[in-house]
């Protein structure tokens, strides 16, 4: 029966996607291996990420000033990896604000993200033993219109004057509008996004910026969970393999040999 299943699989396998399957298997094996290594050795070393260490400072500043912390996950829906990474950081931020008693305001672009954010914050408050301090009305859906959302968040910033703004997630053109408004009210600003364009705006207008993968590494960095640090290590090794593949590709292509680049092409 097993042999039959394998035979059916091989007969119906889409050969044009073999290279993708091989890449996926390599990535999966590396992730497995490093998660096992991390469990054996404890959490693996991750270099300090200044944006994440600054979050503690930002929350502390807000508490001293008696002002709120504004947290936004941007325009991403829940299936976006940047939004998932942002939720990981939110859990950590929510624990800090719960322990300090600082208000946390989270205007949301997507209703599902709002629901998840409410759960994350509620659980964080419960872990700190401050369930009664949890305010679901501070985590609310605004609109799914990009600039309507930007206008709403700007309005919150100008009215509530939060001492710290955390922009972590997927952002598009509204990033500079948010960052500049936050700058004008004198808030400390920490940003992180997977958009390479908006990174430039955040770097100029914010105090700390998480660049590219630093946002994804945040969950492992903050939790120290071996399963997550292991997969981050696997990513680093995958990058090494890709770099080697690129170098080989450059050499072979320069010599006029196409076989290497053909291995990676989609037929």
């Amino acid at each position, binding site marked *: 029966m097993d042999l039959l299943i394998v035979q059916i699989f091989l007969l119906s396998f889409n050969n044009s996607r073999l290279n993708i399957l091989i890449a996926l298997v390599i990535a999966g094996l590396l992730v497995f291996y490093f998660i096992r290594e991390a469990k054996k050795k404890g959490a693996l070393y991750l270099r300090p990420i200044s944006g994440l260490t600054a979050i503690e400072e930002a929350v502390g500043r807000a508490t001293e000033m008696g002002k709120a912390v504004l947290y936004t996950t941007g325009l991403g829906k829940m299936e976006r990896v940047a939004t998932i990474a942002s939720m990981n950081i939110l859990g950590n931020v929510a624990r800090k604000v719960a322990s300090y008693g600082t208000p946390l305001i989270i205007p949301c672009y997507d209703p599902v993200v709002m629901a998840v954010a409410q759960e994350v914050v509620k659980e964080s408050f419960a872990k700190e033993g401050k369930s009664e301090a949890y305010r679901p009305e501070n985590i609310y859906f605004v609109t799914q*219109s990009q*600039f309507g959302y930007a206008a709403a968040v700007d309005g919150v910033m100008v009215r509530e004057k939060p001492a710290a703004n955390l922009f972590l997630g997927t952002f*598009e053109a509204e990033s500079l509008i948010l960052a500049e408004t936050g700058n004008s009210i004198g808030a400390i600003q920490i940003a992180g996004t997977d958009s390479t*364009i908006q990174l430039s705006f955040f770097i100029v207008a914010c105090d700390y910026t998480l660049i590219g993968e630093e946002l994804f590494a945040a969950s492992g960095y903050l939790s120290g969970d071996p399963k997550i640090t292991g997969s981050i290590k696997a990513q680093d090794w995958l990058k090494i393999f890709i770099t080697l593949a690129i170098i080989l590709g450059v050499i072979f292509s320069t010599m006029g040999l196409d076989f290497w680049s053909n291995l990676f092409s989609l037929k």
Partner: protein
Amino acid sequence: MRREVIYILIVAAITVPLFLPLGLKQRITPEVEKFYQTVEELPAGSSVIVSFDFEASTVAETKPIAYAVLRQLFSKNVSVISLSMLAEGTGLGYDFLTKITQEYNKKYGEDYVFLGFRPQYQATILGLGEDFSRVFPRDYLGNGLSSLQLTQKVKNYADVAMIISIADGDLPQYWVDYAQTRYQKKVLAAVTAVMATTYYPYLSSGQFSGLVGGLKGAAEYELLLGQPGLGSKGMEAQSLGHILIILLIIVGNLTLLAKRNK
């Protein structure tokens, strides 16, 4: 320098050329040339998907781009099946389409169809690859797809030559990730200036068969078409705006130098 002074200077730099044209000439960039040529090579009678993936906020950039793209397509008698992945782009896209089709006397249902809007980009893009009528049983005007001449013969990606995404966000990337990777469909992107630099790697790797970026891209496209429009007009204002920003950077750095010397 106070923010308000900077804002006033920007208003002046952008509005003056709208009343006093400077008569500046455009140069065509290779990526716009490539986009134009790719569309130009389409045989008459072929079909193309045009997706209006933008919101109302970027209409100042996307309108000139959309007009130029649609004009080229209809002048070549290419059939257009259009849709939108964003709710706001639906009404705007339909308005743009209606305006340009009137210029070329195109008939709805035969020369062009507007499918409408569907949320959930991945599901929509993947679903269209199999069967348009499964994702859009009815078009934007409520007609069944089986009742329209164009959609009777053009049923999925196999029947279209290419996909053009006119976008202000990352939707062109979704078209590449799903339509091109899975169905090997040619994808062209016409995007706002701020998004254009994101897509140069895609253009270089051949995942995009052309890239029109921002008002400048629209102005170049209009030049290639021989029909100057909103893009060409806006470039003069943008020119002065860029010069002003460079001057502000220089002034800012001179101020910093002066403070250091003190």
